[in-house]
């Protein structure tokens, strides 16, 4: 027994020696860190109610200013989503009453100075940054933009066109999709914290909206100005009083921030992106507001769980399993409302399911076992040791103070945080991780390549397909419908109905077509054979022989899918349905079914044009004097994004007393891009419904 104890002692002793020799840093004694020299922050409130914060910092010959407003996208009217972001852009670009935006650009850039405006969710900014030698001329310009902007039309048009281009590009990169759409799933598409600009909402924004916005949000009591750098506080105070003398509030009132939805809808959501070989994943539920005392234990619990190199998620998912390059997770806090508790990562298609499962295991483990004493000590020490980096630049200090002031947090909130972190106990952390992490309540959202992930996706449970298709613009506004144009339209439809077969159209139930589909691409034409079955009103199947093999596309009520080789892919059924409703018989059947309005618009080269409303997005149909359907015009997908498509009908033949066009040509911008030639058409009474189901 003694011998064992002795050898144990020896082992312990030798380890100690090893450690001192080989790990000398364990015995380093560090000098005391010098206290931080924080220059004083002068806070004043001007007679007009504007709060100002001033700091002198003469290290470099730069002066900086930042004015923050309570104004942002959460206040956008739904029909004008995007207003706030366009406002802030045109505020600066649109110039002032005396100078155009272009003149301001020239002025600033020949002084290496900046004045910029940005709009966020809950706040917007007007900022400047210049060399000391230019401050006396840059600041008056800043004032002029602040108080008398012009929002010139040309810059509004530019900004709107750019916003629309950005909309067209918003599904190009998976990272931006995954965060944007997670928010939309989380809060709901129409909630102010998730709502995004669309073609139509951008189109609806006018110059008057920008002036109204300025009137509503830009006033002294709704702003906080921070001004710092190479200035003399005493001199500046006088200057500011002079400059802001005439800028007054007019009794405006800014609304409270919108309330968040009480509940979210947990589940697994998926969007397909065919050109990537990874899955991008965000999962989570609500977090907390920063004024909640649980913020302090969560701050450290988050570091242990999912922030940084030493965190559990990093160790497990990245270092140990090699599943990702980036992972981040925590119960996050926002200033004005509950934040989100989320985990974000990405991994190759084949391991998407494994990564999600492994992450959920980590959450469960954290909840079940809490944190370890040494994890708490490590992260507490790390937090306290790096605390000095909260004060190493004046920029950081003043921006933080401005944010605290904006959201009504105490100015020493960061010091309170530190005090609280010093006091934390393991039980505090264990309690909050148990309380806030609820993996069974997760919304799990994946942007990935469905083909690459394959059938394994189902291991995650029921998958909800999340449509990220960019809504089309409504296009030019049609004239208001009147009783007269509606009845005239209906008369013309009647002529077409009778011409095409009258009551036989009503009786038509199933039509089967065979033929060729030719697509024109820059390399030449591709011709493919196809068979299609249309079972009115809501079943459709097409078998297309592509160069890559047979492709089957099916709509069956609310379900739509595609099959290529052996793999199935779900499709958004609403879009397929809409496509079908824009079909020849569907339109004619409306004479009896009356689900749609046919508004007479005009006559063009002897063809009457009707606007069809009620069959999905509005579209136009052209009917000639004999009553033959001549063309359809609608906005749809083309090789160059969304564009105006015209489908021309010709080669009408008779099938059992019904007239049907055996040739359809789709034209975009005057160029032919698709042709359908029918070789045989037959009307059926019955068909095996199995063809509309996955085999």
């Amino acid at each position: 027994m003694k011998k064992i104890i002795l050898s144990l002692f020896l082992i312990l002793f030798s380890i100690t020696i090893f450690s001192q020799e080989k790990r000398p840093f364990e015995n380093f004694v560090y000098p005391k860190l010098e206290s931080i020299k924080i220059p004083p922050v002068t806070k004043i409130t001007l007679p007009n109610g504007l709060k100002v914060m001033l700091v002198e910092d003469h290290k470099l010959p730069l002066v900086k200013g930042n004015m923050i407003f309570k104004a942002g996208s959460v206040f956008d009217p739904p029909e004008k989503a995007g207003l706030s972001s366009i406002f802030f852009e045109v505020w600066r670009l649109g110039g002032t009453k005396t100078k155009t935006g272009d003149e301001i650009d020239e002025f600033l850039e020949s002084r290496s100075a900046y004045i910029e405006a940005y709009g966020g969710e809950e706040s917007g900014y007007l900022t400047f940054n210049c060399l000391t030698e230019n401050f006396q001329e840059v600041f008056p310009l800043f004032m002029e933009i602040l108080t008398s902007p012009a929002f010139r039309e040309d810059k509004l048009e530019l900004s709107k066109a750019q916003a629309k281009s950005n909309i067209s590009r918003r599904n190009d990169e998976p990272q931006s999709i995954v965060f944007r759409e997670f928010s939309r799933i989380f809060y709901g598409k129409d909630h102010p914290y998730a709502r995004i600009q669309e073609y139509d909402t951008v189109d609806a924004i006018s110059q008057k909206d920008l002036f109204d916005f300025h009137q509503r949000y830009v006033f002294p009591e709704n702003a906080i100005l921070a001004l710092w750098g190479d200035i003399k506080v005493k001199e500046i105070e006088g200057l500011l009083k002079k400059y802001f003398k005439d800028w007054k509030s007019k009794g405006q009132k800014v609304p409270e921030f919108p309330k968040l939805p009480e509940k979210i809808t947990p589940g697994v959501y998926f969007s397909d992106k065919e050109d990537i070989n990874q899955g991008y994943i965000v999962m989570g539920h609500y977090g907390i507001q920063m004024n909640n005392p649980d913020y302090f234990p969560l701050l450290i619990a988050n570091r242990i769980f999912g922030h940084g190199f030493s965190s559990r998620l990093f160790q497990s998912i990245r270092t140990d399993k090699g599943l990702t390059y980036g992972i981040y997770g925590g119960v996050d806090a926002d200033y004005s409302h509950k934040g989100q508790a989320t985990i974000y990562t990405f991994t190759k298609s084949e391991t998407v399911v494994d990564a999600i499962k492994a992450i959920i295991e980590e959450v469960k483990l954290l909840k079940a076992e809490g944190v370890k004493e040494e994890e708490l000590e490590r992260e507490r020490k790390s937090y306290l040791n790096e605390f000095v980096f909260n004060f190493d630049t004046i920029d950081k200090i003043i921006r933080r103070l401005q944010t605290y002031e904006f959201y009504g947090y105490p100015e020493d909130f960061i010091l309170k945080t530190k005090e609280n972190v010093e006091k934390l106990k393991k039980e505090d952390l264990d309690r909050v991780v148990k309380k806030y992490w609820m993996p069974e309540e997760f919304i799990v959202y994946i942007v990935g390549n469905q083909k690459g992930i394959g059938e394994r996706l189902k291991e995650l449970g029921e998958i909800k397909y999340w449509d990220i298709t960019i809504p089309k613009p409504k296009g030019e506004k049609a004239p208001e419908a009147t009783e007269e144009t509606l009845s005239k339209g209906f008369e013309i439809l009647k002529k077409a109905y009778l011409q095409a077969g009258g009551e036989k159209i009503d009786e038509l139930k199933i039509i089967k077509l065979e033929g060729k589909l030719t697509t024109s691409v820059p390399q030449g034409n591709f011709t493919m054979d196809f068979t299609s079955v249309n079972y009115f009103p809501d079943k459709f199947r097409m078998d297309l022989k592509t160069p890559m093999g047979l492709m089957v596309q099916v709509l069956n009520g609310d379900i739509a899918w595609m099959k290529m080789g052996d793999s199935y892919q779900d499709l958004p059924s609403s879009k397929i349905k809409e496509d079908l409703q824009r079909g020849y018989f569907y339109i004619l059947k409306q004479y009896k079914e009356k689900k749609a309005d046919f508004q007479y618009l005009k006559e063009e080269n002897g063809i009457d044009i009707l606007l069809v409303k009620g069959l999905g997005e509005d579209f136009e149909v052209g009917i000639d004097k004999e009553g033959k359907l001549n063309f359809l015009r609608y906005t749809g997908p083309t090789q160059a994004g969304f564009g105006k498509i015209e489908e021309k009908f010709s080669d009408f033949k008779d099938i059992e007393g019904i007239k049907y066009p055996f040739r359809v040509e789709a034209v975009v911008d005057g160029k032919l891009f698709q042709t359908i030639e029918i070789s045989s058409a037959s009307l059926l009474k019955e068909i095996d419904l199995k063809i509309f189901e996955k085999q």
Partner: protein
Amino acid sequence: MLKKLFFLLILFSVYVFPFEVKEIEKNVTEFTLSNGLKVIIYENHLAPVFSALTYANVGSVNEKVGITGLAHIFEHMAFKGTSTIGTKDWEKEKEAIEREEKAFLALRDEKAKGALADPEKLKKLEEEFEKAKQEAKSYVKPNEFAEIVEKEGCSGLNASTSFDQTQYYYSFPSNKLELWAYMESERFMDPVLREFYTEKNGVIAEERRMGIESQPVGRLFEEFLGLCYRAHPYNAFVIGHMSDILNITREDAMNFYKTYYTPNNMILVLAGDVYPDKAKPIIEKYFGRLKPGPTPPPVYTEEPKQLGERRVTIKDPSQPFVIIGFHKGDFNHPDEPVFEAITDILGEGRTSRLYKRLVRDEKLALDAGAFTGLPGQKFPGLFIFYAVPMQGKTNEENEKAILEEIEKLKNEPVTDEELKRVKIRAKGNFIRGLQSNMGIAAQLAQFQAITGSWKNLLKEIEKIEKVSKEDIMRVAKEYFIEENRTVATIEHKGGEK
């Protein structure tokens, strides 16, 4: 209404000194250790913190066929610790690592047989490798290096690899100088490439998928570079080819380390609250332990002159994008300041020609610009123009407008106003570059490594001030010609996403 706000730790102090570029020189101390390690210290005592940057004069440009991506792989491995940091039992771990290495080689060799590989054998080798990997892992204390420094208040621990160099950086409270010196010297003196295959074939492969394969513009730039360079190693992206990433061995990485990570091929830069007289003995004590080696082999390959325009078009579900590149000289070429001026005139800010014409007036592009510095600066690089077409506008329209602007540059002198702006902005940008310790450290290291002395940083503004209208016309005529041009585009194909 006037209220002054004091924090608990406030110690009132205001520094006043007029700004002069030359002043910076007074804040810099440099010395070289006997092993050849160059050290540069920039003093800034405004806050009790410092930033540290280790500049290894090696990048993807030093790789050869078969080992592309290795410079970056080593960068990742430099966070894995040493024989005393990151291990539970080094003796046993060492043996396990050797077994893992053997198992990987056997598996790799069998896989390399391609269609002729024996599936049974492959399966067996796969299992053996997996087993050896797990065993080696069982001795690892994961991420201990990071844990030690982060616990002591390190902030912003990271590293980056580029075509020309590998940089390791972090910031510390200034009382932790000795810890930094120990840890930083230790990891380059005694690196252990543990978890090598998980990191490389897992993490780094994901990094490649994220940065290139799942990113439309990443895919485009990879095609573009491959087209611009057919001989010079600037032709492969820093991340490397996927097959190389997967097949590189630990031995490859150790050989690379031994060749390039010698103190005579590295530079240390500290910026912040560091007193050189106190820091020097500490740096000597720890970094003096690094053993010097032979001067690493230079890159001999030169890119042959391009003989005709080169083009590539990617058909992609994403929206259009166009880049146009022209070969030019390296950073030390006398024409470089002229290119900097051209960058400014054509592509910087809202007064630049490309913005005014393509973005503002003709609404051809959502964004358009020009830049220099890619792929790298040590060797002849590219001058690149790009445009992001507006919805409904094409790459061709944008390309045409850019080429017209280039012709204008050749045939008409730029205006006085434009040239003046270049010079003023060079000064402004220089001053703004001094706002962060890490920013200063990076600049000093780059100039030291690429131009031979950090002091050249201070001469940059002067050089740009000397650029004339004639220089700009001459350079445009000489370089921006059809046979020196490479164009890469993304064309949108079908679908709606």
